[in-house]
């Protein structure tokens, strides 16, 4: 089992954190994990993405060229990565920011109004948490409890922890 995920979107959407949540969840479940961000000043105001691998064997290559899961938070990222997803893979689309539909029919697609949901829950900035919830549901390598545990661990003692949980649940229960 090796899950190769690319998360992509604008800088400031919490893309890199989204990837880290997966990694922490994977660790909690005793998986081997890697997280590799795009980096450098070209990120300034531009796009951000990260590659996450969760595996039951040591991760050989942290660099993903063909993800089996793609989580996209804006249109340019979808344009860039859509064609790279493996046949039979999964694409989670933030439909609040991406108007178009996926053109492939050999992948599973979920459209998620992550921003709307987050806003409704009163925490506009947790669209990425909503996506994380959806990932745990559909991406399926970590259990819901483990994932939630790992996530809440990151927000331990911080205010707004409660709305984080709500956002996660909302994403998971879509």
């Amino acid at each position: 089992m090796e899950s190769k995920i690319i998360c992509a979107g604008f800088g400031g959407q919490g893309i890199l954190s989204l990837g880290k949540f997966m990694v922490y969840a994977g660790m909690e479940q005793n998986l081997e994990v890697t997280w590799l961000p795009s980096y450098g000043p070209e990120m300034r105001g531009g796009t951000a993405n990260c590659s996450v691998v969760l595996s039951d064997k040591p991760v050989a290559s942290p660099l993903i060229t063909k993800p089996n899961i793609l989580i996209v938070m804006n249109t340019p990222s979808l344009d860039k990565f859509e064609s790279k997803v493996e046949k039979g893979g999964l694409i989670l689309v933030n439909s609040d920011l991406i108007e178009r539909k996926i053109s492939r029919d050999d992948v599973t697609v979920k459209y998620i109004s992550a921003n709307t949901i987050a806003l409704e829950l009163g925490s506009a900035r947790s669209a990425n948490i909503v996506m994380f919830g959806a990932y745990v549901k559909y991406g399926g390598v970590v259990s819901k409890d483990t994932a939630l545990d790992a996530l809440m661990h990151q927000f331990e003692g911080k205010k707004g922890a409660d709305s984080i949980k709500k956002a996660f649940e909302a994403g998971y229960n879509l």
Partner: protein
Amino acid sequence: MKVQIDFEKCKGCGLCVTACPKKILKMGAKSNKGGYFVVECIDKEQCIACAACAYICPDSVLEVR
């Protein structure tokens, strides 16, 4: 014509808002393709074409005639 705003170029930094002596610039609610909320002129009539906004704008978004 007075002040003119190039919607796609604005990065929403708000500097022009602080610079305008007439207080007629304010941050808008609409964002452009870059994801930035773009400044608006709320009362073009009042503009005295002093160009204070244009001079402070780092991105040459504003044209003043």
